[in-house]
Every structure is written in structure tokens, then in C-alpha cells.
């Protein structure tokens, strides 16, 4: 079997119904398996011998030393009993769920938009946590494991922040007999938890992917999923085309573009725009960042370093392309970070911007991050009225 990334030994914390199924899957896949219950070896030795022969039984604190990756299969309510120091620098796969009938009522673990894997990650502060396997019932995990090319092979979703770890866990998922479907950063793992449509999902990769995409839209908005990154023209062009194709040019008009300035949105046109952004950045003329929610692009923010006829000095501009993310504080979140970037990396002390006088939302947004009006409103050559603003002492 594929031994990419050198994961040869799987450790499992928890030797109940779920932990035993992981041991069985790992053994079937050819891994060495180390498993621990809540304490004494003698309490689980017989179960493991009969149910998962060849798995080795250890105490919880000994598991890390005998494994390259550790699966958490204990009740979530007991996560603080995990021997965290032994798991430092270790890849940890969180398969736990909040289950009030076992864990008791716990408001700290049951908020619908909180990924419990983030809670686990903040406890295991020196480990690398990836969420996986939690959404499928242990019956199905046992029964549905199948060869890579099996028809209707089922999929396991994973969420994590580190690309190398995501690859490693995807590989483990595949070896356990499932297709791996990445659904986003650790925070996005909330969509796999009790109360969401994916909890209990026993789906093919195609269906799992489609359901996850819908859920990202429905999910209660959480700023912990936002990030600013450089454009990825091929992918972002597709997303930008989605923003504009049914938009009747309202977004670009709101931004102050006259009808004759707006090109029809095609994937090719969008791709050229993003390629231009990349080129402008290499010349130091413009710094463009995509605003992302999970892995999806929802807007653009950019700094023009050059003077224009209207703005004397560097200026900042922002557009939330995905309408679902407007009026949620995304603009302020992005402006604050981009202004910090302008100050710390570009060493600017003053920043300019402008908005259509009629665009109250833009005016309010810029005021919210301490931009002040510079001068009176003025007409441009297209007959639009603008208001310039600026911020000093970045």
C-alpha cells in the first residue's frame, strides 16, 4: 500500500465502539496499531485481543511514542484528560463529537458555529489537529470501507489548516477504505458536527462535496474563517465570474464604473484581470488580496501605490463580490488588516480612498475605520458624484 509521508503507525485514544472500529480499519490497511482506553491496560486487553487482534495495548500517555498519527476516539467531554504533552508536534486526527447523552449538557461544546476541533486544537496547543471521520457512524465506518476503485465508494470529510497534514490524513482516509473530501480549514469543520446536514453523512465523494458547498453558504457567518491571500488567477476567475454573471452590473456600477467601462464578465475576462493584478504587484504598483471565506473567494481589496488625477497618494479600494457576505463586517475586517499591511510592510503613514456620494454603505464603512472626508463632493467625466476620503497616522 501507499506509504506516502511515512505514516506507518496509527495510535488510537479510546477503545470503545468507535476506537475499536478504527483499530480494525487500520489493521486491515496494514498499519501498526497502538490503542489505549481511559487508563489500565488490563481493562481493554481482552476486548482488543478479540476484536482487533494484533493491535497493541498501551496506557494513554504511551500512545504517542508508538505512533506517527493519533486518532482521538474518546468522548469529547473528556478532551482535557488527553495527555497533551506527549502529543506535542504530533499529527492528531479528531474524530470526536459532542454527544450530550454521554458528555452531559455542555454549552461550551454545543454552539452550532463553533468547531469543536478548534477547541481541541487550542487545548493541544503544540499538536497539529485535523478533523476527520467524525461525521460517519461507526456501523457505517465498519461496513462501508472499500477498495479505491469500488463503485459508490463512500467518502470521509476532513478539515484542517496545514496542507501537509491534510495530505497525510487524506492518505490515511484512503487507506482505511474511503475517498477523502477536504471541506476547508479547521474552523469549517463545524459543518460536519451534530445539527448539520453532514452529520451522519454516508455519501459518495461527489454528494459529500456538493452538500458541503451548500452548507458553507448556510453556515452562520464566523470571522474566524476569513483570510486575505494573493490572487490565484485560475480559480479566482471562476469565482469572480460567479459574482458578476447574474448581477446586471450592479456591483461594478456601485463601485463607480460607467457602463462603457464595464466589460462583460466571462471567465477569460476575469482571468485577464487577475493576471493583471499579479503583474501589477510584481511591479510594485498595486497590492491585491483576495478576501476568502474558508477556501472560497468572496471579495477583493487592493492598494494602488500610484497617484491618480483624483487621489494624490496611495489609495485603498474594496469590493465584496459575493452578495451573501455583505453587511456582515467583512469589509471592516479586511480594511483593518490591509491598512496594517500598508503601514508595516509598505511603510505608508497616510491612505486615501473615495466612494460615490450616493453609496452610504461605503461612506459608513470608511468612516468606521477612521477615514475623514477630504474636500467637497465632485463630478467626474462620466457625470458621477464622488467623495474623497483619507486617513492619517496609520
Amino acid at each position: 500500500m501507499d506509504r506516502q509521508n511515512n505514516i506507518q503507525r496509527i495510535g488510537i485514544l479510546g477503545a470503545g465502539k468507535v476506537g475499536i472500529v478504527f483499530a480494525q480499519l487500520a489493521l486491515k490497511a496494514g498499519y501498526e496499531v497502538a490503542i489505549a482506553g481511559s487508563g489500565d491496560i488490563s481493562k481493554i486487553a481482552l476486548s482488543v485481543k478479540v476484536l482487533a487482534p494484533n493491535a497493541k495495548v498501551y496506557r494513554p500517555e504511551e500512545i504517542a511514542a508508538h505512533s506517527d498519527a493519533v486518532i482521538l476516539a474518546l468522548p469529547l467531554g473528556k478532551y482535557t484528560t488527553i495527555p497533551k504533552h506527549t502529543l506535542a508536534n504530533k499529527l492528531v486526527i479528531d474524530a470526536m463529537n459532542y454527544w450530550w447523552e454521554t458528555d452531559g449538557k455542555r454549552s461550551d461544546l454545543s454552539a452550532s458555529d463553533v468547531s469543536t476541533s478548534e477547541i481541541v486544537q487550542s487545548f493541544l496547543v503544540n499538536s497539529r489537529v485535523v478533523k476527520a471521520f467524525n461525521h460517519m457512524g461507526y456501523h457505517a465506518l465498519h461496513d462501508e470501507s472499500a477498495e479505491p476503485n469500488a463503485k459508490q465508494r463512500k467518502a470521509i470529510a476532513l478539515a484542517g489548516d496545514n496542507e501537509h497534514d491534510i495530505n497525510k490524513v487524506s492518505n490515511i482516509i484512503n487507506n482505511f477504505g474511503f475517498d477523502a473530501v477536504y471541506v476547508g480549514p479547521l474552523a469549517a469543520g463545524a459543518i460536519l458536527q451534530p445539527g448539520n446536514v453532514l452529520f451522519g453523512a454516508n455519501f459518495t465523494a461527489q454528494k459529500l462535496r456538493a452538500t458541503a458547498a451548500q452548507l458553507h453558504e448556510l453556515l452562520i457567518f464566523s470571522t474566524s474563517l476569513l483570510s486575505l491571500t494573493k490572487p490565484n488567477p485560475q480559480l479566482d476567475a471562476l469565482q469572480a465570474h460567479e459574482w458578476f454573471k447574474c448581477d446586471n452590473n450592479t456591483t461594478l456600477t456601485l463601485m463607480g464604473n460607467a457602463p462603457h467601462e464595464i466589460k462583460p464578465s466571462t471567465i477569460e475576462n476575469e482571468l485577464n484581470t487577475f493576471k493583471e493584478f499579479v503583474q501589477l504587484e510584481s511591479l510594485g504598483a498595486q497590492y491585491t488580496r483576495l478576501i476568502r471565506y474558508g477556501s472560497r473567494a468572496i471579495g477583493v481589496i487592493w492598494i494602488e501605490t500610484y497617484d491618480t488625477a483624483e487621489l494624490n497618494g496611495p489609495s485603498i479600494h474594496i469590493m465584496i463580490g459575493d452578495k451573501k457576505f455583505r453587511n456582515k463586517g467583512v469589509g471592516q475586517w479586511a480594511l483593518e488588516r490591509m491598512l496594517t499591511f500598508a503601514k508595516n510592510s509598505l511603510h505608508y503613514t497616510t491612505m486615501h480612498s473615495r466612494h460615490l456620494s450616493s453609496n452610504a454603505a461605503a461612506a459608513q464603512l470608511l468612516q468606521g475605520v477612521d477615514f475623514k472626508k477630504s474636500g467637497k463632493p465632485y463630478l467626474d467625466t462620466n457625470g458621477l458624484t464622488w467623495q474623497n476620503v483619507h486617513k492619517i497616522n496609520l
Partner: protein
Amino acid sequence: MSASKKNKSHNVLFGLDTFGDLPTNEKGELYSHPQAIRQVLKEAILADKLGVDIFAVGEHHRPEYSISSPETVLAGIATSTKRIKLASGVTVLSSDDPVRVFQRFATLDALSNGRAQVMLGRGSFTESFPLFGYDLKDYNTLFEEKIELFAQLLNEQAVTWSGTTRASIKNIEVYPKTESGRLNTAIGVGGSPESVIRAARYGFPMMLAIIGGSPDRFKPYIELYKQAAQQLGMPAHPIGMHSPGFIANTDKEARDIAWPHYKTSYDRIGASRGWAPFSREHYLQEIEHGSMYIGSPETVAQKIAKAITALGVKRFDLVYGGGPMAAHDRLQMIELYATKVIPRVKELLKNG
């Protein structure tokens, strides 16, 4: 149990289990709790008349189920039936007093001329905890201590016991005593290795609740029970299983009748646990490869025979009437189970 002992296949006992789900009348209106309880009595009398071996009722504390006091219902059934065994499935021992459980079932045993069986379990629900003033975080301790006390009570001698979950008992006799000298007791297990070993440790027969996925998955658990019993020097009793099902004249009729009721019942429970809604796809998957015994008498008989053979169990209970099903469909199902399915399973087992 009688003359059939010499034949291997006839060693298997067949039961019917219910939680006393509220059924509906001809107009589709839901029965009240008292009506639903009387319906269960009617069903038990029919099952007894048609030769079903065991009738088991489970303890729940939820609006959709009418039975919270299994032994009271069973006592009613006891005086109207002749030969059917009367079991709980399960009695939630964690939130009950072992002494009272023993006394109530010993009383049932007297009323039924020795036909009572108590099946102890933790139950798949937790409503009894707040109701009787227990804390879910003591789940394990409560069950562990109370089963220890119950095991002592079964000896029908003076009891001495102390623990953290109940007042101590010092050398006290508990009444009534049973005629056989030992109340028939089993333990219901959902598939955690710890529970399997616990059943072996106390020398209780084990009943597996197989309510999802393939029954084959439980093979190693049966092996675990046997090995644990051997290591601990306890007898390894025959093992039983229970699974949900519904029978009608054809596969299509059975699937169509049962579907909305299973969906209602699954989704109601799922809502509190955060499960996604039950899909028709999942339903059909469980019927074809999992643990729902739904179809024509032939289909269900084949599936039961297959599971009995695969696991080597000596008792099969069909959990019937899941969700707000019409009362007449339930009665017809019991008739088909007793007159068509059970004889056919016995035939299949005999012919290997």
C-alpha cells in the same frame, strides 16, 4: 421449549418487542397513552395465541411511547395469557432502585407462573435521568453499582451491600421469593466492548440490540463474550439479538407502510442528537444490507435466518410498531410473523 429441544433449529426462540409506540386508528388519529397500552395488551394476547415465544416491552419516558412501567404492562398481559414469556426490553436499571426492580419482577414471575424475564440495560435514551434525579455524568457508576447489587439480589438470600448511589443494605431479606429460586435475568448490550465483558462477568445471558448496519459486525463481540466468560470462569449463555422490522403481504407494501413511520420516529430522535434527517436511501440500505427486517414474510424470514446463522444466536426478537403506525397494520404484522415468518425461518434453519 417443549418437545422441540432435540432439533437444533428449534432451539431458537422468537420474540416480539415493543416500546408501546402510539399507533393510529382507522381515521389516522393518534391513540392516547391509555389506548396505546390496551393495544399492546391486545397484541400480546394475539402473539400468545399464535405461539410466539417471548413478548418484551421496553421502558421509555418520551411522549411517543406509552410504556414507562414495563412490569405493570406485563402483569396485565400475564393474567390474560398462558405460555408466552414476558420480558422487559430493557429496564433502565441506572435510574431505578435494584431492590424495587427485583420485587416487581418477582411479583410478575408469580402472576405469570414463572414466565418473567428482566432485561437490564442502560437504554438508548436518557430521559429517566432528570426525571428520577440522576446526573448523566454518573452514568457508568450508576449502572456498575446497581448491577452489582442486582446480581446479589438474584441469589434470593439476605443482602449486604454498600455503594455511592444508594443507601447501604445490611443483611436484609428481600421479598417475594420466586418459585424457581432465580429470576430469569438478561442484559441488553448495544455493542460497547465494556458492556459485553460486564455481561460475561456477572454470568448474564446477553441480548444484542442490533439496530443499524450489518449484523455480521457483531460476530467478534459474540466471540468476546465467550472468551470473557471463559477467562472469568462464568457460564457462556446462549446469545440473543433484537432488531426492528415490519411485515406485510408484499415487499412493496411493507416498505411503503413502514417508511413514513420510521422516518417520523428516527427524525424525532435525531433532532435531539443532531442527526441529519432520515433519507429513503438510508432506509433502503438498512433493509437490503443492514438491520431493518422489512418486507414480505419470505423476505423477512430469509433475512432473519441469515442473521441467526451468521451469529449463531438462540433468540431473535423483532422490534415492531416503530412510529405512529396504524393499529390494524401492527396486528396483521404480528399474525404474519407468527404464522408465516417463524415457521419459514425454522424451516430454513433446519435445511441449513
